[in-house]
């Protein structure tokens, strides 16, 4: 049986990629943030997952408003990252996967989810920054990535409860896949932040910390929020909590927290990092 070994929540903001390119990890501003990652990298090195399912949102690289899926899943052998327009260096192609990913989309449709199925998409910082964080020096080619993209930009967006349920359906699909591959799930983005409007700069560190607690033992309580609630409580881009909920939904076993970090502000965000074991 293919097994989901755990989930990792992480920020994906471009500023992190830029800081890594400029070698700023040990500077006063960044060191507390980057300190979160060596234990996670060690865990990944010990566990050697074969596949990573990555919940992210596209910020207008591949999925423009003309045809913007609510949920999209990649079923491609590789994914390219290209210029996003404001200076973050591109990274080498990401290795994809075409067996488990097709199995997942087949099973999702059977479970009444109807994602957009993508055989050729470019991936943006939402997916590439987490990979760069987990595998510095672009040493991620051995890992087969399945992108799961959630609309976090234009209303109507999928509800937190639906994103969590999507994760549960993906988790169930993975468990029914033959073989003995190990899968890790990334929930990326967040946490509280707001980029737009007169309210720009709003964060809610208490909510972030409390929600990281709940994510471990009481994730269902987080699914009771509407997206409007998240905007009010966690800022306009606080809806990126939906990717963390998707990740958490995939973990259907006994979940324990192995590692956590939280630093705010990192750029305009509360930056959470969390490693959850799924047994």
């Amino acid at each position, binding site marked *: 049986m293919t097994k989901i070994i755990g989930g990792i929540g992480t920020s994906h903001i471009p*500023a992190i990629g830029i800081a890594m390119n400029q070698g700023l990890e040990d500077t006063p501003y960044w060191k507390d943030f980057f300190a979160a990652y060596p234990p996670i990298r060690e865990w990944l090195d010990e566990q050697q997952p074969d596949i990573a399912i990555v919940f992210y949102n596209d*910020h*207008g*690289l591949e999925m*423009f*408003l*003309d045809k913007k899926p609510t949920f999209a899943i990649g079923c491609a052998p590789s994914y390219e990252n*290209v*210029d*996003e*327009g*404001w*200076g973050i260096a591109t990274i080498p192609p990401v290795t994809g996967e075409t067996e488990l990913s097709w199995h997942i989309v087949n099973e999702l449709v059977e479970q009444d989810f109807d994602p957009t199925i993508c055989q050729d998409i470019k991936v943006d910082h939402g997916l590439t920054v987490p990979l760069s964080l987990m595998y510095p020096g672009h040493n991620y080619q051995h890992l087969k990535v399945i992108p799961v993209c959630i609309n976090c*930009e*234009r*209303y*109507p967006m999928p509800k937190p409860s639906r994103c969590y349920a999507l994760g549960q359906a993906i988790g169930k699909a993975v468990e029914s896949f033959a073989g003995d591959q190990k899968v890790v799930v990334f929930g990326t983005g967040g946490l509280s932040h*707001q*980029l*737009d*409007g*007169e*309210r*720009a*700069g*709003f*964060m*809610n*560190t208490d909510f972030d910390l409390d929600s990281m607690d709940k994510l471990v033992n009481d994730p269902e309580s987080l699914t009771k929020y*509407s997206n*409007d*609630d998240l*905007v*009010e409580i966690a800022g*306009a881009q606080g809806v990126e909590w939906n990717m963390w909920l998707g990740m958490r939904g995939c973990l259907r076993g006994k979940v324990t927290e192995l590692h956590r970090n939280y*630093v*705010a*502000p990192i*750029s*305009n965000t*509360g930056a959470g990092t969390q490693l959850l074991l799924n047994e």
Partner: protein
Amino acid sequence: MTEQNKGTWGTIKFDGPMATKGFALNKMCYSFNGSGGRDEFRKDEAAYCDKFGLTPEQKEAVIARDIMELERLGGSIYYLSKFAGVLGLNVQDVGGIQTGRTTEEFKAYLESQGRGKHND
């Protein structure tokens, strides 16, 4: 539970009507993903706005770098961020512009909610 009309202060909900209003503007900013679009814009900003069919108000706000007005005219922050990138502005600069603060004041506001508050 339908709370689609609940508004949050200082936040423009990017919904269907706003996306309709801002489509051409956002499409222009989407073109800034490529260096070709950025270069062409820089050569003649007004002509580039016309090429994408921006309204006179949107065009004026682009030329004036009025980020808040562009949001009111249907701009999505995802694409306006690419416009800000063309201008060499980062998200703290844009935060300052929208909130009437200098970039340094905006950064101090961020700090006051985070490291300035939790020192654990």
